[in-house]
């Protein structure tokens, strides 16, 4: 029996990155709740300041510090916990825990590891041991040989036979993995992989096999269940994080389903896992042969998905089991009357589709394969596969109406099916329309025929619909059939050549409305008081009552209020908006309102069963929101806490009479509409960069010439700077204009004067009926021109004049009054000398709300929510006199995006962020940089700074590196500059110089510990030496700085502060 701990240390997963995203906020939050239920004290280490788990009321002590052995050990020394949990913080926490175990840190401090023993974790992580352990019980794994060197890898590949699968041990999201068809390809992959991993696995390649996963739970009494199984739509060879996934499996019969289930139980027992694990299989589509691909002895992306897909609280239960409870002791938290020791029965189908943002990166390969590139995912629920799949496609918010009804074409559709990209799903209907049959599509894509039959059903419905003729009346039966296949009103309208409103009217006239169904884990076998809901047209009655009858259930006195969540995590919108939505729901609940959440992202806390009174796991489209609104008849709807997707619905809500709580939709529209906003600023006498809305190239070029290059080119509705670009020349402008108009044809292009060398400052604020109530000003470390989402934020500002801050505050007050703002908003400014210009204003919560709220210890969203509902709310404006400094620093995932140019620009590229606190800017900054995975292991640096002016500006820092004893390598001009200034440096050759050793050779052998490459931003060559150098730094895992201000701050920080001296201080110990 496990000794009951008094204080438990939980490791979080750090910043969101590709392969490790919001799912660990969900699992960590549930773990903390479960520990709290047990009355156990909790300490959390997680530098991800935007998470819900690091919020007040979750852990007893929170450390915004890197999840890395050094910092974790320091926290252990300080907090003296008696147990630790490693399986709730993804691969980051697991790897850190394994290292602390191996180096004897846990033993030294007598800390018990709760849940799965570390030796079992190592058995699942070390491929050699993994295969050996499974061989012991006769469970099949792919033929696999470990290789620690290139020669070993070549020999192993010869034994397995080409093509071979190459995998990297201890890698999150399959980083560095790949398929090699020839020795040449193998050489490339292995060389790259061995730079950041000690071992590569050379394995048999099971092309075209099905990929199936099970989520398995085991308790200390050896009871075992599988909570969910899932099948990949895409065949093996495409990473499960890149695949469309369906739950439960669709093409497995009883024999296959239960055989793999039995193997899963056998495996989890053999490894001795206690808690949760995930097992992935390859299944031969031509026989019942299988292989176990991998076992993850921790909560994972798949377990979060399984939890949301079934309603079974996996992370909560796993925590209870780690504390020694057994499954039969625990109740099913959905039904409250049945046991947690059971396997959910689904009476619906769940489809997960990944969301990619590859178009944001220059030079990136769009092919999808064994490495993860997607940045988020959506989950849709339906009662036909077609319904769920089409919902999911729309949820991606990439401009698609569904599987069909889109404007999309492929130069070679067969090639797309054979070598899939992020658009492969859409190639299937295109191929079908071109007369390519299911059989051929199956042979090209290896996607199971069952899925293709379903898509064919959608395509043939579309054909019948368009056969009705332009503007023809649609028979009610046909309309219902379409809705049951998941067609949206807008999609039907597109096919029929009519309007969304017309389809909706006709639908309502025929009485065709969606029904609300519950997710109850037991397929209605027992009554359940579940609040977990979805919409479907494949039904004839609602599961729940609405209005007064529904409200009684929650015991709340006040009418329900709908909160719209943020949808899929993507670049520009992720966990920070989940924090905002959860904060708003919690505040509404405190006030006494029943809360209704709409969101569809399985990686979120806002979709947890205990966050709101009712959860609609469904689309955030206007159609669905309106359907839910009409059923629930709420007091109103809050759309200012979920980012841009809900915000974009403002005017449509207004037009159809849905009550929006907070700032009026017409005022939101004024802020969103560039003309109206600009006019308002002019009236207020507030300055802004010169801009013009234009429709043709010639007038655009004339305008650019008149204000002077560079200019910023962008469409009028902005979502994280999509399709934004800076044109330095007339040629640039011509190139971008075609790209920008392709993104948003309804909206003309806006050209703005791009101001260089200016500082960027933002204000996050809350207003009450036009009166500024709460605000915090943050400054960017980088100069203007770096997207605010990629910028390093400092709070309180360290370099901004007080006079500037005073002016910003006054401008903010005037804008708040002019737009009658009620609720959260954010304004971005650029300041050059004493000039302040407004560059952006959003009348909604911004990405930085959780950061400023936590640094200031004042929940901006809670305050805003109370004010929006007419409540009194007191808040202290203390952001200028904090006794410490907060730094928000971006996390990039360039290493996952083969080929992508890791340079900062006006397009946002970061996938996550960390926020750290310190007594000084340098201290907070250094913690934040380390928290994103930067490790300075060698005192050697490569400097490649373009432009003499830039080199002068960095001279002090170059000297500092020299003083610190760094061996300095430099490229041609930088080396000459250093020589002129008496700093010893070794000149290295660029790749184009064709004489070895080049920069690349030094990086390959690991001679360089840090790269500072300040490129000439005006150069637009896609492949040049500077790009190759940056890319090589990423591929060989060498820390890289490409921004001048950032590089200077970093060098300054390492000069002043040693990592060992960084203070270990909990959030609550920083006093304001």
């Amino acid at each position, binding site marked *: 029996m496990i000794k009951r701990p008094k204080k438990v240390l939980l490791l979080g997963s750090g910043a969101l990155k590709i392969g490790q995203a919001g799912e660990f906020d969900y699992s960590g939050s549930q773990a903390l709740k479960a520990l709290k239920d047990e009355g156990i004290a909790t300490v959390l280490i997680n530098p991800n300041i935007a998470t819900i788990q690091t919020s007040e009321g979750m852990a007893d002590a929170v450390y915004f510090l890197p999840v890395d052995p050094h910092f974790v050990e320091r926290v252990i020394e300080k907090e003296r916990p008696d147990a630790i949990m490693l399986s709730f913080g993804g691969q980051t926490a697991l790897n850190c825990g394994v290292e602390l175990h191996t180096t004897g840190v846990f033993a030294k401090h007598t800390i018990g590891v709760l849940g799965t023993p570390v030796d079992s974790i190592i058995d699942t992580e070390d491929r050699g041991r993994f295969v050996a352990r499974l061989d012991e019980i006769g469970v099949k794994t792919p033929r696999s040989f470990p290789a620690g060197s290139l020669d070993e890898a070549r020999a192993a590949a010869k034994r397995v036979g080409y093509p071979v699968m190459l995998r990297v041990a201890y890698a999150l999201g399959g980083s560095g993995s790949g398929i090699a068809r020839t020795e040449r390809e193998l050489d490339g992959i292995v060389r790259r992989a061995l730079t950041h991993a000690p071992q590569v696995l050379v394995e048999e390649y099971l092309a075209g096999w099905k990929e199936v996963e099970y989520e398995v739970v085991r308790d200390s009494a050896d009871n075992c269940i599988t909570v969910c199984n899932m099948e990949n739509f895409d065949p093996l060879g495409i990473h499960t994080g890149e695949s469309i996934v369906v739950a*439960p499996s669709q093409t497995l*019969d009883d024999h296959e389903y239960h055989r793999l289930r039995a193997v899963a139980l056998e495996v989890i027992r053999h490894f001795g896992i206690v808690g949760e694990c995930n097992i992935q299989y390859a299944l031969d589509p031509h026989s019942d042969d299988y292989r176990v691909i991998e076992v993850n002895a921790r909560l994972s992306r798949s377990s979060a998905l399984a939890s949301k897909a079934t309603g079974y609280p996996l992370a909560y239960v796993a925590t209870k089991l780690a504390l020694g409870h057994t499954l039969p002791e625990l109740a099913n938290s959905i039904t409250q009357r049945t*046991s947690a*020791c059971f396997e959910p*029965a689904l*009476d619906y189908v769940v489809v997960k589709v990944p969301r990619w943002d590859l178009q944001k990166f220059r030079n990136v390969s769009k092919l999808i394969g064994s490495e993860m590139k997607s940045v988020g995912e959506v989950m849709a629920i339906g009662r036909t596969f077609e319904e769920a799949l089409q919902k999911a496609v729309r949820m991606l918010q990439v401009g698609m109406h569904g599987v069909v009804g889109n404007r999309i074409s492929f130069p070679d559709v067969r090639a797309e099916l054979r070598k899939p990209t992020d658009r492969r799903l859409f190639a299937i209907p295109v191929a079908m329309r071109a007369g390519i049959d299911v059989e051929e599509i199956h042979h090209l894509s290896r996607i199971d*025929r*069952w899925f293709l039959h379903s898509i064919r059903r959608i395509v043939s419905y579309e054909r019948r619909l368009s056969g009705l003729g332009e503007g023809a009346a649609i028979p009610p039966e046909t309309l219902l059939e379409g809705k049951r296949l998941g067609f949206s009103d807008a999609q039907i309208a597109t096919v029929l050549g009519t309007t969304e409103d017309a389809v909706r009217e006709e639908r309502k006239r025929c009485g065709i409305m969606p029904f609300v169904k519950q997710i109850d884990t037991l397929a*209605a076998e027992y009554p359940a008081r579940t609040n977990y809901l979805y919409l479907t047209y494949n039904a004839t009655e609602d599961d729940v009552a609405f209005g007064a009858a529904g409200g009684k259930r929650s015991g709340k006195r006040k009418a329900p209020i709908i909160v719209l969540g943020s949808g899929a995590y993507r670049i520009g919108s992720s966990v920070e908006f989940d924090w905002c939505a959860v904060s708003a729901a919690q505040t509404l609940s405190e006030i006494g309102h029943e809360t209704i959440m709409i969101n569809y992202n399985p990686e979120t806390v806002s979709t947890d069963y205990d966050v709101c009174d009712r959860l609609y796991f469904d689309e955030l489209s206007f159609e669905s929101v309106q359907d839910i609104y009409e059923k629930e008849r709420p007091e109103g709807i809050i759309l200012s806490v979920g980012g841009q997707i809900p915000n974009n619905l403002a005017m449509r809500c207004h037009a159809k009479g849905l009550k929006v709580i907070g700032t009026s939709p017409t005022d939101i529209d004024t802020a969103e509409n560039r003309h109206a906003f600009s006019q308002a600023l002019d009236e207020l006498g507030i300055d802004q960069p010169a801009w013009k809305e234009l429709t043709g190239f010639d007038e655009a070029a004339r305008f650019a010439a008149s204000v002077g290059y560079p200019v910023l080119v962008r469409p009028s509705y902005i979502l994280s700077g999509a399709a934004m670009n800076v044109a330095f020349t007339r040629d640039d402008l011509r190139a971008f204009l075609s790209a920008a108009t392709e993104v948003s044809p309804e909206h003309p292009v806006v050209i703005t004067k791009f101001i260089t060398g200016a500082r960027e400052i933002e204000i996050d604020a809350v207003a009450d009926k036009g009166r500024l109530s709460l605000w915090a000003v943050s400054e960017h470390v980088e100069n203007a021109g770096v997207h605010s989402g990629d910028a390093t934020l400092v709070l309180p500002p360290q370099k901004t004049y007080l006079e500037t801050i005073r002016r910003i505050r006054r401008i903010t007050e005037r804008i708040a009054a002019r737009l009658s703002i009620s609720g959260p908003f954010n304004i971005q400014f650029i300041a050059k000398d004493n000039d302040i210009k407004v560059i952006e204003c959003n009348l909604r919560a911004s990405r930085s709300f959780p950061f400023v709220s936590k640094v200031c210890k004042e929940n901006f969203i809670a305050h805003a929510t109370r004010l929006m509902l007419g409540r009194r709310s007191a808040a202290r404006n203390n952001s200028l006199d904090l006794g410490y400094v907060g730094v928000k620093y971006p996390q990039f995932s360039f290493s996952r995006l083969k080929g992508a140019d890791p340079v900062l620009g006006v397009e946002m590229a970061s996938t996550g962020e960390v926020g750290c606190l310190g007594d000084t800017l340098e201290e907070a900054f250094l913690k934040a940089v380390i928290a994103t995975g930067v490790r300075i292991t060698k005192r050697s640096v490569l400097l490649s700074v373009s432009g003499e002016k830039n080199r002068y500006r960095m001279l002090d820092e170059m000297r500092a590196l020299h003083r610190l004893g760094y061996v300095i390598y430099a490229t041609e001009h930088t080396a000459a500059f250093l020589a002129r200034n008496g700093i010893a440096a070794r000149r290295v050759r660029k790749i184009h110089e064709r004489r070895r050793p080049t920069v690349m050779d030094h990086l390959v052998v690991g001679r360089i510990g840090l790269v500072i490459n300040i490129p000439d931003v005006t150069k637009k060559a896609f492949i040049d030496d500077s790009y190759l150098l940056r890319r090589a730094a990423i591929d060989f895992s060498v820390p890289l700085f490409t921004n001048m201000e950032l590089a200077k701050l970093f060098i300054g920080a390492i000069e002043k502060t040693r990592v060992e001296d960084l203070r270990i201080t909990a959030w609550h110990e920083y006093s304001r």
Partner: protein
Amino acid sequence: MKRILLELEDGTSYPGYSFGAKRSAAGEVVFNTGMVGYPQALTDPSYHQQILVCTYPLIGNYGVPRPDPKDPLAMPFESDRIHVAGLVVSDYSAGYSHHAAAKSLGFWLAEHRVPGICGIDTRALTKRLRDEGTMLGRIMYDEEPPFIDPNLTNLVSQVTVPAPRTYGSGGPTVALIDCGCKHNIIRSFLKRGVRVVRVPYDFDLSAIDFDGLFISNGPGDPKMCAPAVRQLRGFLKEDLPVFGICLGIQLMALASGADTYKLPFGHRSQNQPCLETGTKRCVITSQNHGYAVDGKALRKGWHPWFENANDGTIEGIRCADRPHCAVQFHPEAMPGPTDTDYLFDRFVSLLRDRQS
């Protein structure tokens, strides 16, 4: 697809579309929450004369294999025919895909003259059956068949084997009282080297020699099987190993002097948790029964062995001083989880002890 109707005895009706056989049918309407295994479920004799509602909405995905003419026990079928009277699903998948499939579910149903109805809100229907209890119903294709209550007839006599049949050779022998036995029970014995003598449910066992007795699953009310209960009474007084599954446990309970009763809507699923009494062990089981053993009426010497972790009903009983035991769930699975397959090992080792 033709529009047809499912009607319940209380007058509620559910319009849907026809698939499978183009005809009407009547029976007792029951729901099953299993997500896989329709070929096994439809051929399970325990569903005889029942109209089966699948709560999982997508049915037919992996088609149906061709039966093996050389092996009457071949998987995935649990008997030689479809036993359900009708099938009710939400979304019928005509476009099937599986390496073993030879035909669609609809085609197979039509071959066996069994009607199907799809496009039904099976969750709404299930909730009705759960709240109001199992009901009689009929699928109306183009006529209105009368409602039929199968529990008023001796269903077992309709599904039992007509004459004794022997499977396998060598090893210990088990006499299998066939009340509507699923094929995988026979396969489970054969796999363990046991010779099986399968006899009609009312067969006089004094004529044959065997090392243990097994009573199979089967349809309907156990109290309709008086001849089997009478014969069992004698065996329960002896030390011969006896094992029963599903209807088998109910017949053994009746023979031991205990009672059975009808559950409001039965247990038909693949996720039923069962606690082994006196341990912390909980197994996940496959179930298909409408009647249960009354735990309060167990006679002296008999003890609960397994209990349902959800509703506390009796899932297994055993005799304290004789090798007699039985379970309500299906250790042979098919469809469902195979967690309790070990119960066959236990029983077979008793047979071997007896043989030697």
